[in-house]
């Protein structure tokens, strides 16, 4: 047997101890690294790792030229730790800025006064916030001093170097152009929840995805190098591009506001649409909401009424009847009709013209120039109700557009079987049915565009934060009437503007304009009967030789002046502004008006 003695024995024991210790360490290592690794990691993370939410920024809404209509502002909440204000007997020290060296002693009361001076609060108000929080919970570590301060105030507060004062940034929607396009852009309510307009309809595009990341923090709050782990990448919201032109929108709103005020009307609308693309470049309404200050606006005027408030269009729809007659080959612009001023075509159905006149030998062009209800119905009655209804539908009446607004009214257009006899005649001159002003603009866009209706659009596209562009669909273009019909109707409408009583009021030197007035009765929803005052409209196309834009102005229920003139003036202001904005060259060629009588 091997017998160990002396140094050999000691060496062997030492080796054995080392081997045993190694096994113990090895076992522990495996335990820590493998067996209970996950649990330990979690435990450690909770102690050191700090999860941080990275809020995404809501996207901008911009006009056709990239001018910002809605953007996101950063505001700051001021918070304090009530229990820490009492630390060290309510005294803290900060660098002495006057001497440049050393520190000065500041009491909590002094600090409250300094904070209040910046936030506009009184020292005792802040003291009360602290006292209330501590009364509620003696260990309270959090209370708001003031929410939503701006950057200047934030920097002033930071300069106070108060250890128990902290700040948190938050996002707030702001609209640098105020009420310009406010009706379209919409607004957000509390906590930036979208409530109306594009903010609501394009919410999906505008909303981003919040990111999260964690980092391990050292004792003094600095992230440990290499410990930042992005658990979800932040993705900001996309940018919504509108077809609106900001400056033209302002001019249009100015124009309609001015006219509504000058005749003390109840409301006014003014829409400008591109003939070739269907894009709405201005959708103006009187008294539009300023999304920065929603409460200051009239609650009845906060919606985009151009899309949600249909009304009976009146004589502007005689163009549809004329289009149907010519397109069906039943009439030409020169079709003759001996027109009286009053008609009872059948039992219980009667209507008259707006002014008394003897029987006059008008052509179709003359009937529209004089806006004769009798003449329009006498000719239009040659078409069946179904045919006339089909044409109304082809022009987009009775169907909501897909321009991009969250809510829209389709207007009221009953099927022919539901028309009573009076309605059957009334629909020929734009009564007994209703349309939004955007739908009416669409009718004139169709005529101006050679008979092809391009659906009106308001939202061009959504550009995501990584640059991906998604174009919005608004529907397919459709041929409503033949090109030759459209040309004939254009000639009639230009005759209307050159031969009508208002020609001088409308004229823009150098530019040829085609258009039609409308003075429509409206049903009073309270009584169910027609009101005694009117909605005055003018729908026009310019330049008539090469149609580029359509504008429709409506001024409703004036109580101190001539609404027809007001709507003409609003149209003319809009047309002039559009010509300046888009640098439309003057018209070429002369127009010879069609004969109005035979």
């Amino acid at each position, binding site marked *: 047997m091997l017998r160990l003695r002396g140094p050999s024995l000691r060496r062997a024991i030492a080796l054995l101890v080392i081997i045993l210790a190694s096994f113990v360490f090895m076992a522990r290592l495996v335990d820590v690294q493998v067996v209970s690794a996950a649990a330990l990691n979690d435990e450690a993370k909770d102690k050191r790792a700090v999860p941080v939410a990275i809020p995404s920024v809501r996207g901008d809404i911009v006009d056709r030229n990239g001018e910002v209509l809605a953007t996101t502002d950063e505001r700051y909440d001021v918070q304090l730790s009530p229990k820490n204000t009492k630390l060290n007997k309510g005294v803290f020290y900060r660098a002495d800025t006057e001497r440049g060296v050393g520190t000065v002693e500041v009491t909590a009361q002094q600090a409250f006064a300094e904070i209040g001076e910046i936030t506009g609060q009184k020292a005792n108000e802040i003291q009360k916030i602290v006292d209330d929080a501590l009364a509620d919970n003696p260990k309270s570590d959090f209370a708001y001093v003031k929410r939503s301060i701006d950057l200047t105030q934030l920097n002033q507060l930071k300069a106070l170097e108060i250890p128990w004062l902290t700040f948190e940034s938050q996002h707030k929607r702001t609209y640098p*152009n105020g009420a310009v396009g406010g009706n379209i852009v919409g607004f957000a309510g509390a906590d930036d929840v979208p409530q109306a307009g594009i903010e609501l309809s394009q919410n999906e595009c505008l909303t981003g995805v919040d990111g999260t990341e964690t980092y391990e923090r050292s004792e003094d709050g600095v992230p440990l190098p290499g410990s930042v782990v992005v658990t979800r990448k932040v993705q900001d919201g996309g940018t919504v591009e509108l077809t609106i032109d900001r400056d033209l929108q302002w001019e249009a709103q100015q124009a309609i*506001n001015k006219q509504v005020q000058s005749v*003390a009307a109840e409301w006014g609308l003014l829409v400008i649409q591109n003939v070739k693309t269907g894009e709405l470049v201005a959708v103006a309404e009187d008294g539009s909401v*300023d999304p920065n200050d929603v409460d200051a606006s009239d609650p009845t005027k906060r919606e985009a009424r151009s899309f949600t408030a249909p009304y009976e269009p009146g004589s502007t729809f005689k163009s549809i009847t004329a289009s149907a007659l010519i397109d069906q080959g039943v009439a030409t612009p020169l079709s003759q009709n001996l027109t009286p001023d009053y008609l009872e075509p059948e039992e219980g159905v009667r209507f008259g013209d707006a002014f008394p006149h003897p029987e006059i030998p008008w052509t179709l062009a003359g009937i529209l120039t004089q806006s004769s209800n009798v003449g329009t119905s006498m000719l239009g009655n040659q078409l069946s109700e179904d045919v006339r209804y089909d044409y109304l539908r082809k022009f987009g009446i009775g169907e909501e557009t897909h321009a991009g607004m969250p809510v829209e009214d389709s207007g009221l257009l009953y099927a022919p079987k539901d028309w009573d006899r009076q309605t059957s005649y009334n629909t020929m001159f734009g009564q007994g049915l209703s349309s939004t002003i955007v739908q009416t603009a669409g009718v004139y866009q169709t005529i101006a565009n050679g008979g092809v209706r391009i659906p009106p659009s308001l939202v061009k596209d959504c550009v995501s934060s990584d640059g991906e562009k998604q174009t919005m669909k608004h529907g397919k273009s459709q041929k409503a009437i033949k090109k030759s019909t459209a040309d004939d109707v254009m000639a009639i409408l230009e005759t209307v503007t050159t031969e009508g009583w208002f020609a001088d009021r409308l004229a823009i*030197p150098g530019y040829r304009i085609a258009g039609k007035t409308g*003075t429509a009765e409206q049903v009073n929803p309270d009584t169910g009967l027609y009101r005694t005052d009117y909605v005055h409209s003018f729908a026009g196309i310019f330049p008539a030789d090469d149609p580029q834009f359509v504008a429709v102005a409506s001024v409703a229920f004036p109580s101190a002046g001539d609404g027809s003139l007001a709507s003409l003036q609003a149209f003319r202001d809009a047309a002039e502004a559009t010509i300046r904005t888009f640098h439309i060259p003057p018209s070429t060629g002369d127009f010879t008006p069609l004969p109005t009588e035979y």
Partner: protein
Amino acid sequence: MSATVPIDTHSAAARAGAHLGAAPLPTGRPGERHLRPVATPAGKAHPKRSPLAIAMVGVAIILMIFAVQLGLSIAISQGAYESRALEIRQRDLSRVERVLSQNVDKLASPQNLAENAAALGMVQNSRPATLRLSDGAVLGALDSETTEASGNLIPNATLESMPVVDAQGLLVPRVAGQAAAVQPDKIDPPVRWTGKLPAPDTH
């Protein structure tokens, strides 16, 4: 002849030599071992290494590694502080940039431009004339009609804190509510005689 076997002394000696193995070779002086240390080559003195020195060198290397590692991690954490300071600076500057660009947006709003233009008495060329390049023709009248810049009727709450120019071109605080559209008092419309027609009366 004796009974004993004569011994071949040579072979016996050889056997004995093989057995004992210690039989000195006949070369050299008797009693001298044939192995001896090799003489150290001249001029190449072997250093005298004590185990202590080796241990110290090893410890020194380890300490040096520690020192370098410490230095590196100090440098990294210094970098972390610097990068954090720079991140904060970048955040602060981007906040300033945001505020400034939003101020530009506000000042570029049509309301602000119109109010300032109106205050300065500017006029607008409402019907610009156009020069056609193809034939050099001037379209429209050269003595174009001008209109006064009309006062702004569209509210914008973001402009409240922004100054505006007066007629002398000096910056003055904006009059609160300047843009607030004032509706004229409603005048009750005269009651019309409606006649016998319930039908629309449109033209």
